[in-house]
């Protein structure tokens, strides 16, 4: 018996899509643990998102203080650990986002909790399925500590639906906030009007074969036509053609859209690790022997210079005919 504490990220008064995936995981886990889902919102301004979180969780705990203005693992981890103790949590979950991956293991360290990272499935109260070896195998692990920490993969859990009736919101004090000498300096944000890569329905990715950043414009046209997010291989991000946070793969974003375009990407295992879960995969590559064609549902052996503009005009035609 124990509760499930779900750390939820928010923007303003809204929960992020990653939080909704976490809450749907937390519901499954709470049933297995015979406890309740408790959504945890931490940060300056967190109270604003309380009512929204209460639509999805029977209980919401808000820790809102000016000293928590910027996310820092050093200040957030003790808050999560303390709330977990106070709320009798036997499981703590945070979606495997950049923040979740930074924070959750630190919380586990504070609580001497065993942790299962990046889980794709709940297989029992303390048993989880998770990808290993860049997604080339799935391991079922059992964690035997009194408190367990997990990071569910956003792409593996549907967004939670609202509950019939709203939950209660309580606040907790942050305690002594000590950054241990660490300081947030600044965020160089990548602004984009496109959907978030992690939960987009369509993703258009380009690789080294695009040759330069200017050439990505044609992929962006395709993306905007489809309401898609942009992605890239490591070779393209490393070369500075596109921003680093477009990288899809073992060490980038994990995506599972309905439709994934891999353009001028060879299909290295580390790239496949990030997109193999896509429903339909389209590969456009000039070399028919590339491994990307082994995972693609549809392959076109052509140069992108010819294929992509044609693809754009064919899709426009299709849309016009409807």
């Amino acid at each position, binding site marked *: 018996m124990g509760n499930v504490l779900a750390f939820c990220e928010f923007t303003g008064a809204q929960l992020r899509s990653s939080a909704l995936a976490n809450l749907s995981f937390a519901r499954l886990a709470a049933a297995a643990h015979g406890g309740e889902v408790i959504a945890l919102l931490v940060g300056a301004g967190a109270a604003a998102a309380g009512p929204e979180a209460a639509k999805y969780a029977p209980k919401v705990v808000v820790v809102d203080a000016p000293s928590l203005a910027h996310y820092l693992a050093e200040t957030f981890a003790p808050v999560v650990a303390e709330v977990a103790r106070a709320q009798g949590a036997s499981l703590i979950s945070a979606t495997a986002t950049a923040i979740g*991956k930074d924070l959750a293991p630190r919380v586990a360290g504070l609580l001497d909790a065993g942790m299962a*990272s990046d889980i794709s499935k709940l297989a029992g109260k303390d048993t989880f399925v998770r990808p290993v*070896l860049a997604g080339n195998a799935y391991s079922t692990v059992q*964690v035997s*500590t009194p408190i367990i920490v997990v990071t569910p993969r956003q792409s593996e859990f549907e967004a939670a639906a609202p509950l019939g009736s709203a939950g209660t919101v309580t606040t907790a004090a942050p305690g002594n906030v000590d950054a241990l000498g*660490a300081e947030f300096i600044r965020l160089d944000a990548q602004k984009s009007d496109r959907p978030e890569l992690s939960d987009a329905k*369509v993703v258009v990715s380009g690789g080294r074969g695009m040759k330069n950043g200017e050439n990505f414009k044609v992929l962006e046209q395709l993306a905007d036509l489809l309401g898609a997010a942009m992605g890239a291989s490591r070779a393209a991000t490393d070369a500075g053609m596109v921003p680093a946070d477009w990288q899809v793969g*073992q060490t980038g974003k994990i995506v599972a859209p309905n439709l994934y375009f891999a353009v001028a990407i060879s299909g290295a*295992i580390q790239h496949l690790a990030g997109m193999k879960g896509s429903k*339909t995969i389209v590969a456009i590559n000039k070399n028919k022997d590339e491994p990307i064609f082994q995972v693609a549902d549809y392959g076109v052996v052509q140069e992108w210079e010819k294929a992509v503009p044609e693809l754009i005009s064919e899709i426009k035609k299709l849309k016009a005919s409807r």
Partner: protein
Amino acid sequence: MKILVPVKRVPDPTQKAKVKDGHIDLTGAPWIVNTFDEYAVETALRLLENGAENARLPGSEIIVVSLGPDDAAKEVRTCLAMGADRAIHVVTSDAEIDSLVVVKVLSAIVAAEKPDVVIMGKQAVDGDANQVGQMLAAKLGWPQATFAATIELAADKASFTVGREVDGGVEYKKVPLHSVITVDLRIVAPRAVKNGVTPESHNYSGEGARLPSLKGIMAAKKKPMVQTKLADYGAAAAPAIKELSVALPPPRAAGQIVPDIATLVKKLAEEAKVL
């Protein structure tokens, strides 16, 4: 400055995964230093050398630590050949340890060695856990800067400014000495590490971590490597995380090569119903 670099050996990730009796079959597997840990050694070297003059700074030391079986000594030796100064090899089997055990041992070693900073990989590419650095920082009560894509040592040598690739951009975080820094792939880019000594104009190759030179390989044979065991650190072979079984994912259904874009769009609309 003294830097501790924990490294793990992992099966070569380019090899196809095989499963035997419900677990990954590693008989005859080729082993390598975890790529991110190799990058961590590279980072430590760049922090502690004058790259342009190819010379180590006086008073600098890099210690590598690894928990692993007897024959992991080979991968540890590779790190010494790259330029690390000495090694601690905690001899154990992979089945005896999990993140918590590794962290227990590493924190005891930090207490004994008193490094100025711990630099390590962000994740081991076999288990893909991405846990040990953050857990170690928590245990030590030290700050952490994870997923470092750039590191700049301050002029007073008392702090690092770390560029971290996060969702939606790059975050810059400052951490004092006595921190844990975990490195991401781009830390090996030509100008990702700045130590205030190597001239700005100096370009590292950017092709990954340096390969051990012949001279480095010879020198590594004489560098100190002590072998210890879990019990030396009060740790027991009692992992809290047990792997029950491993399975390969079902293969994707075979795809098709289509002759042209018009056919592709037709199939995406009518067959896959995704347009």
